[in-house]
């Protein structure tokens, strides 16, 4: 399935290399010729990754859509700074994360989910179920994490970025990324009483 946030897990390496080469060609057309049509093509290729990432991060579809549009507009302005190191999608996710951090509009959906989980544990099932509309296991799991841990876990497990790519996308040192993933896994293990192995 191409276009999903988990492309790394599905595409084979040769196809991925060809896709990266096509991405780089599009980038050079955009930077050199200011080609908006090529930019549209690039957006079409990666919109799914960026939108999925932002939807997971905000748990708010409308906000995620706005941020995704802003992300691509920022990407247009900054594309000349893309040095060709790493994948284009990794770079776009970095721009998306920066756009999310700089956004004045914040979603408090995860705080609400966390609150409902607490209510549920305290036995207030009525209030909890009222707040639980369409809350998935993943939402509950992400709700117990801090904003930074959540972003790193989504980039690593959801978007299939490597530790190094997550480090580049978030601007955190590699060691910090690894320890944040480890800490997040530990939180998940403690909170949900599950045996997640620690590979980070």
């Amino acid at each position: 399935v191409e276009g999903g946030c988990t492309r790394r897990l599905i595409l084979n390496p040769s196809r991925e290399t060809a896709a990266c080469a096509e991405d780089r060609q599009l980038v050079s057309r955009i930077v050199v010729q200011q080609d908006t049509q090529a930019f549209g093509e690039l957006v079409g290729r990666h919109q799914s990754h960026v939108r999925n990432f932002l939807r997971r991060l905000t748990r708010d579809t409308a906000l995620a859509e706005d941020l995704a549009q802003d992300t691509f507009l920022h990407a247009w302005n900054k594309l000349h700074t893309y040095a060709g190191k790493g994948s284009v999608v990794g770079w776009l996710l970095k721009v998306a994360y920066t756009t999310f951090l700089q956004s004045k509009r914040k979603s408090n959906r995860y705080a609400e989910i966390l609150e409902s989980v607490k209510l549920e544990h305290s036995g207030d099932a009525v209030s909890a179920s009222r707040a639980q509309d369409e809350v998935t296991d993943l939402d509950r799991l992400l709700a117990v994490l801090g904003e930074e841990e959540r972003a790193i876990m989504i980039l690593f497990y959801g978007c299939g970025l490597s530790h190094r790519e997550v480090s580049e996308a978030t601007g955190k040192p590699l060691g910090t990324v690894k320890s944040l993933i480890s800490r997040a896994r530990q939180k998940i293990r403690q909170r949900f009483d599950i045996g997640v192995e620690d590979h980070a």
Partner: protein
Amino acid sequence: MPEPMIRPDDEALRALFFAPPIEDAGFSHRVVARLRRQLWVRRLAVPLAALLGLAIAFRPALQLIEALPQQFAALSAGLTDAAPSQYASWMVASLVITMATFATLIFVGVED
């Protein structure tokens, strides 16, 4: 409500985080349309600002151009007529003293 069912391995987390691809559904067109609007506004902004500035500054600039020859004439006449006064001497003397004081202070500072 039951706790999330997560298998105790790394793949389970990957599976849990899996998100199906989102259809474009006009998203890229919306982004490109917004981008083109921005570029159009940017391209138009500079000439528009220049035109506006020209419209605002036209009359004062014209008055200034008309007044310039008279101003220059007055200035040159003033310079010709100027003679050293006691006030000017005092100004020069205080300037020299101030500079000398600062130079000494700087010299002492450098030495320390």
